[in-house]
């Protein structure tokens, strides 16, 4: 029996400010996730105050009365809790759509660590075990990371990792397809520079595939560091030149670049995409992966359908690969 557990990311329901606010909307999404065979949900940090009520611990408390009360809602929907929270340090929480801190700025270390601890405490209280973070900005902002930048990042995330570990929460660095870590051997160097005991890797199959990286190969290379998996599919690749587009988050990820790609991410299925899920999950099995596997379909126009179709794929095809 595998120790891995299956969760589903709620980000596909929360596509814009004030689209996922009412408790009834939360409840319907949570029940859909539960009955599709998942035992937990992943939350994503967001900044729009009370209109993003799952966007940070304060908003959870304001809507539900307390984090613990939200935990009761999760269990009432037949879920165990949350698996994880995704936190991007560039997001600030004091004003609507506020800006946070750049991990490459050494003076940001304190605020980022404090905010990480804030989220990690909520992860723990809601039964989860992982804080997923965006470890650095985009490739167009930095170019290839030099040794001094790697050192700044390593110092930051080691410090954060020690603080979350003290709360019983693992820290996992997430590489998105525009990340500076896609350039050269940035990812390998950052992992080598960080403390393996407190800093792990969150491996997102689709983000790596869009970046032109083979998620199976990346997993095999860093299996001992992988603390978290996000499973989704992709159909298009963004090469390095396109990733270097100024403000690529807006002009490539959101607007779709010159090709006008309207949707980068798809739920895991056997319908054909860049990711070979069965090979990937088999690799997890070979290495005895025992963490969360979070299925995602951010950008799905049909959240319930995506959850159910991927739920079928997990139940019938992927979970049996782990149970061998």
């Amino acid at each position, binding site marked *: 029996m595998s120790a891995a557990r299956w969760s589903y990311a709620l980000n596909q329901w929360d596509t814009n400010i004030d689209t996922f606010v009412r408790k009834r909307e939360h409840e319907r999404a949570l029940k859909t996730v539960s009955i599709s065979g998942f035992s937990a949900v992943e939350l994503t940090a967001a900044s729009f105050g009370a209109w993003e009520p799952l966007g940070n611990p304060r908003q959870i408390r304001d809507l539900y009365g307390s984090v613990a009360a939200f935990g009761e809602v999760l269990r009432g929907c037949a879920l165990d809790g949350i698996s994880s929270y995704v936190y991007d340090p560039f997001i600030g929480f004091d004003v609507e759509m506020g800006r946070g801190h750049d991990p490459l700025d050494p003076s940001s270390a304190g605020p980022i660590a404090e905010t990480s601890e804030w989220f990690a405490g909520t992860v723990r209280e809601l039964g989860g075990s992982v804080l997923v973070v965006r470890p650095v900005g985009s490739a167009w902002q930095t170019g290839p990371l030099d040794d001094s930048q790697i050192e700044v990042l390593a110092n930051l995330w080691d410090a954060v990792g020690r603080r979350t570990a003290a709360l019983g929460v693992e820290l996992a660095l997430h590489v998105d397809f525009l990340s500076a870590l896609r350039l050269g051997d940035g990812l390998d160097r950052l992992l080598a520079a960080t403390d393996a005991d407190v800093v792990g890797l969150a491996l997102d199959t689709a983000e790596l595939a869009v970046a032109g990286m083979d998620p199976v190969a990346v997993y095999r290379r860093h299996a001992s560091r992988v603390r978290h998996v996000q499973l989704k599919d992709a159909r298009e690749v963004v090469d390095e030149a396109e990733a270097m587009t100024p403000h690529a988050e807006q002009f490539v990820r959101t607007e779709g670049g010159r090709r006008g790609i309207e949707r980068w991410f798809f739920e895991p299925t056997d319908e054909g995409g860049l990711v070979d899920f069965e090979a990937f999950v088999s690799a997890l099995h070979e290495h005895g992966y025992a963490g969360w596997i979070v299925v995602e379909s951010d950008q799905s126009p*049909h*959240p319930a359908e995506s959850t159910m179709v991927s739920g079928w794929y997990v139940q019938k095809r992927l979970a049996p690969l782990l149970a061998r």
Partner: protein
Amino acid sequence: MDHWRSNSPSGPIDQWRSRRTMTRFLRQVAAVGFDAIDTFDFRYWQILEQYGSVANYQEFVQEQGLERIVNTFHGVYYEPDRYAPEVPETHATIVEDFKVTMDRWSGIQLDNVIVMPGSRFYDDHGPTDDQLKHAADVWAKVGEVTQQYGVNLTCHHEHYAGIRNRRQIDTFYAYADPRYVKFFVDTAQHCIADVDPVDVYEAHHERVTGFHFKDTRNKDVNEDYKLFPDAEVSAVTTEKWFYEMGTAEGLVDFERMMRSVRDHGYEGWISVEHDKADKLGGDYAESTAISRWYAKNVLDGIYAGAGA
């Protein structure tokens, strides 16, 4: 039940658009824990075109992890001069239609073929007792035909149909031979017509061979049942009659319904239906998930608690 719509890059579609869309539909149904599907028998020609035969289509269903097709709903236009249960002159046509239908579906084993036992709203007074008797007579003849294939002929009472209120239902079944004419309870349809679904089930439980479990938030208080082409799409009372069970503000007491089903020893299939779930921003997939969540987390426990 196979009412289903979703949005595609080319606009709204149903699951019969392609084998790929059918695959996704079946996987959604299977993923949340349903065991089987119902369908409409007017899909027959489409089944031949896409799958080759009814048996092939059932194999396709089974490949997605479902057991089988349990029921079909017989769709036909009722017209007094051609095909109407209340009109004896059309009965030979009706019986012949079912000989053809049952032969077409004989490649698989169904539990029920479901019919509307009466024509659409008949007139201000509804069908007369004689007309109810004529309808009961023809369905008994049809039931004899279907039972030769091991299939029940079972009657489903739309809230806008000619046999809709409690008096009409009771009179119809008083005339109908219980060996051949069975009853299919639709919780929401009865509720809209101001018929208590539990009470009518208990009155006729011995001939009940299936259920559509769905909810509603409204009863017909505007004589919507008289509207053309049918009150499900033309009503004044609401643009959306049907909601999945487990919905807030639902009028059907499913916990009471389930206790009754349990206490009467019913062991057949219960079908969950979402008719026009996409109205007013609804979503078939989500309704399917929410209703199955409710069945698993609320109703299964009631059914398992025999005698509680």
